[in-house]
């Protein structure tokens, strides 16, 4: 850290460094030969952990303003190994451990952004974003506004999120509605290694604060990643088409909804699964396009029901599809209770049966 420029960064130095890095990156990128048998380019089977790690490594290589900071992100490589090897590779100025204070990490990130950096802070677990909420809400989210656009906040806050790993208290929370409610924040959650890789790289390039919610229960599952084929980085994505009902989900619930769609197909019901991806801004047109086809929708999320993001999704669908909807938009969510201990996790997180009941309700609904 001692060599890091403090306060005002000599931007010409940074830009010179950027050019150098870009050249290096371009050289590196040109080296792997395109796979001969696959016209779509390279494909790799990676866990979400590995995909995120790679996205961070490439970001650090390509963007000299990017810095990774947080508790145990350096030598340990992060409590989920997402930053594994990055300090070794990029040095302790670019990837550094902070004292144990989340408000400090976020407040520091605001200051680093003011100094021209692209901070990528990590909060180890969703529940430890609460101590940082003051800095996130009162500072990070509104510095661009307060400064009349002269101090944008290109900060990407990585938060391992949601439940499903039988962890202690405050290690399995779903904060998307809280963050989405705050003007000035963008919120995104990937559902697969491919999405994680591309959305994280993209989030860092976004000039606004992005809360990047990593579904920790999906860290270990592998999936195909196409590094050269990001596809659209904005908006929602249909991950399984169907004509009877749309399931809207994000993060770890996408995989569960895909399971449900498979089971529903056995009963003759064709379920469309829409991965919302961006929780702010929500892709209202994407929602409307899907529901225009299926005419029924159920939102599934782990967070509690009341004032959850499902309410926002339902409102957006209703505003756009009121005339075509065959049933009120359904919600299958966590309950309005604190996230329970591991033994009761499966009772809390929407399970297959509860989602099937939700589908049944909108299918059975008749007007009048």
């Amino acid at each position, binding site marked *: 850290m001692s060599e890091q420029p403090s306060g005002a960064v000599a931007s010409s130095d940074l830009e010179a460094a950027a050019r150098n890095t870009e050249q290096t990156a371009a050289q590196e990128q040109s080296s792997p030969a395109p796979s001969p048998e696959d016209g779509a380019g390279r494909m790799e089977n990676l866990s979400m952990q590995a995909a995120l790690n790679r996205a961070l490594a490439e970001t650090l290589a390509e963007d000299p303003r990017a810095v990774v900071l947080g*508790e*145990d992100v*350096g*030598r*340990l*490589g992060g*409590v989920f190994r997402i930053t594994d090897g990055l300090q070794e590779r990029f040095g302790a100025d670019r990837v550094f*451990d902070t*004292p*144990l*204070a989340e*408000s*400090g990490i976020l407040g520091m990130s605001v200051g680093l952004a003011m100094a021209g950096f692209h901070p990528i802070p990590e909060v180890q677990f969703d*529940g*430890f974003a*609460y*101590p940082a909420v003051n800095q996130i809400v009162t500072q990070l989210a509104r510095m661009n506004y307060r400064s009349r656009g002269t101090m944008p906040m290109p900060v990407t806050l990585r938060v391992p999120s949601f439940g499903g790993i*039988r*962890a*202690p*208290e*405050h*290690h399995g929370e779903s904060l998307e509605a809280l963050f989405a409610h705050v003007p000035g924040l963008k919120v995104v959650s990937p559902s697969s290694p491919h999405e994680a890789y591309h959305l994280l790289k993209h989030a860092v390039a976004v000039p606004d604060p992005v809360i990047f919610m990593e579904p920790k229960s999906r860290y270990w599952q592998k999936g195909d990643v196409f590094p050269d084929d990001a596809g659209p980085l904005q908006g929602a994505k249909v991950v399984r088409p169907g004509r009877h009902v749309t399931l809207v989900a994000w993060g770890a619930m996408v995989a569960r909804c895909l399971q449900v769609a498979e089971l529903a197909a056995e009963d003759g019901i064709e379920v469309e699964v829409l991965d919302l991806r961006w929780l702010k801004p929500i892709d209202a047109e994407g929602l409307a396009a899907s529901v225009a086809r299926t005419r029924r929708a159920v939102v599934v999320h782990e967070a509690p*029901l*009341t004032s959850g993001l499902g309410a926002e999704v339902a409102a957006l669908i209703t505003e756009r599809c009121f005339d075509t909807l065959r049933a009120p938009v359904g919600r299958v969510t966590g*309950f*309005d*209770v*604190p996230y*329970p*201990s*591991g*033994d*009761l996790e499966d*009772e*809390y997180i929407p*399970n297959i*049966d*509860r989602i099937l*009941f939700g589908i049944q309700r909108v299918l059975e609904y008749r007007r009048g």
Partner: protein
Amino acid sequence: MDNNLQPAALPAEELRRLYRLVTAVRQLDLAAIAWQRQGIIPGYAPELGQEAAQVGSAFAMDPKHDFVFPTYREMGVALTMGVDMTAYMSTHKASWHGGLYDPVQTRLAPIQAVVGGSVLHAVGWAHGQTLAGNPGVALTYFGDGASSQGDVHEAMNFAGVLKAPVIFFVQNNGWAISLPTEAQVAGGTVAARAAGYGMKEITVDGNDAAAVVLATREAAAHARAGHGPVLIEAMTYRRGPHSTSDDPGRYRTLAEERRDEGADPVRLLADRLVAEGIADSAFLDAALQDANANADRVREGVMALGPRPGSEMFDFVFAEPTEALKAQARAWREESEHV
């Protein structure tokens, strides 16, 4: 400071009790790591090396009047306070976050997962004793890592301003997961910060159980006498991993551990007892046997813990449940398979 606040040296019987306690904590701690390896519990936060700091400090408190605020690594405190250890360990079984013991009756606040989260509560509770004219003292635990949290600063400042009867007990175990104290605590010690809050501080060898008892008794007497808060920094060492899934080999070597770990708290006390003729090897053996038997009993208790009834998710959200929540509980009962 009044000389009458200086505690007397520990009598032999107390030293023997202390030894039985640190041994019980050591064996239960080792057992809990094994339970995790055997799939009995999903995870555990070992406290190997911190037995003296925990047992010694809890030993000094008055269970009739005082109240204790733990973190998630205070098994030795709970055991010393006589908490049912199956109920305590249930937090690591993932039965109930705060543990299944009764915090009001045991005088031990629920297990706290937020680092530094309960330090302010101790100040509030302590000030409540002042307001109510009670003689109680609050003892709050936290680590070198938690000392970085803003809440801890706020707590110390409040306590200093209010002269609250609270003991801030820092177990400086050298490591906050992978970060060593020198990268965590500017200025080198937490105790040095007490001066800034106008607060008494005591730095003590956290591996010496008897010394910790004396330091905590001195602090409690100071606070009880209305002289305000005390910061105790017990210098010790986290000999094990942060948690059962941590691999310290990623950030420190065995040679560094050997260099830094200091005296083994259990061994240190045993040597003293034997050297002073307070205990013989038969006593030490009996203490170990009792400790292992206790660990076995707790193991059986933990294994017998079924999942809590799912309805408890809804039972404790409010003191006065809402109709909407009751409706959710009914829907849950209809739609899920239940434990």
